[in-house]
């Protein structure tokens, strides 16, 4: 799952390195709110889920681990 998330993030914003540990993607300006919309669309189709709209909050997209947790919560396997 982690590799798939990094692949999607890199396709979305190829200018950034999403493999770095301890980096907050939102605070560092690597993802803006529109990126989150695109990311959710990609994650939904890749994992065959629909991420709950109430979970589309910046804090859930801050790190790969946060995104992984979000996916698990929304039924991704």
């Amino acid at each position, binding site marked *: 799952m982690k590799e798939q998330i990094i692949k999607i993030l890199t396709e979305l914003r190829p200018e950034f390195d999403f493999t770095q540990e301890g980096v907050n993607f939102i605070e560092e300006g690597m993802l803006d709110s529109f990126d989150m919309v695109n990311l959710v669309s990609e994650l939904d189709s890749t994992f065959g889920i*629909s991420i709950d709209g109430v979970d589309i909050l910046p804090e859930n997209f801050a790190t790969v681990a946060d995104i992984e947790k979000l996916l698990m919560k929304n039924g991704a396997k």
Partner: protein
Amino acid sequence: MDFVFKNKRISGILTVLPKKAVKFEDEMANYSFSPAKCMKLKLAMGYNEHRIAEPGQCSSDFCKFGLRYLFDKHLLNKDDIDALLFVSQSGDYYMPPTSNLIQGHFGLKHDCLCMDINQGCAGFEVGLIQAFMLLEQPVIKRVVLMNADVLSPKVSAQDRNSKPLIGDAASITIVEKCEEETTIYANIKMDGTGAFALNIPAGGFRMPSTPETAVMVQDAAGNFRSKDNLVMQGDDVFNFVQREVPPMIEHLYEQSGVDRNEVDWYMFHQPNKFMLHKLADKLGIPHEKMPANIVENFGNASGVTVPTCISYNLGDQLVNGKMRLCMAGFGVGLTWSSIMVEMGNLSFNKIIEF
């Protein structure tokens, strides 16, 4: 707040759109995104083209054009209008009320209650609730509800949050008493603490427009707008809608005793495709039962999107038959409202161009 209305019906819907259509691709050079990212924005949000009024055209002009059409086609009789509601955020003047101007323009009878209501995205539902309440009075048999907004001049051309989705339009809905046993369920909630999630800072009495308010300033996301422009806190609006709308619809099922599967169509306000699909998923509603094609074809004209959605997607189906609709509006105010209604055998349900 819940409402129940009996022996009332919607008998006709006319949507009036500007002739001028502007393509997303023709405006994207104004945005601070690369062309590739703009195309992603288009795909995710469902942007394609939007209808924009010509300079000088006001909301009331679209209403007058629609009313003239209905009078000329003998679909509405001037003397049968007991109340004229104008729901808009873009009236002609601070004073007088635009509804009075329209009444005067057509020389409607003096026994006609004219009322302007300042409402946005939930303006269709607010207008219908007001119309149904007026119809409780013995002297009021027919209400003409006009929803109209020409807000495109207030949106910065360099604002990719709002410019690609804004549309101008008007609708005229006839609401009347009927002998047939009908029950319409409605609810509404408001939260003024979130009022500035959607606003136009300058131009009112609190902050009159001046050369200073017209200065363009770049925001953190790279959009340029002035204080005279509409500003939408997109994240706040999105979160508000996802948090409040699903429980409101669940409550409407309980209130009306209607199961979600018994609803033929979900006619919701049209902010963008992404938001509507998220709402449909949360509510367990197939996407095809909740049309999300108004922004891509015409733009988001605030309170006019629900009637536009009904006219565009159902058209003559509502003239020749009857269906159960769940309607919902949410946005400016903050306001959120929904209505469960059986609608059909309309005298008209169509779109015309002005």
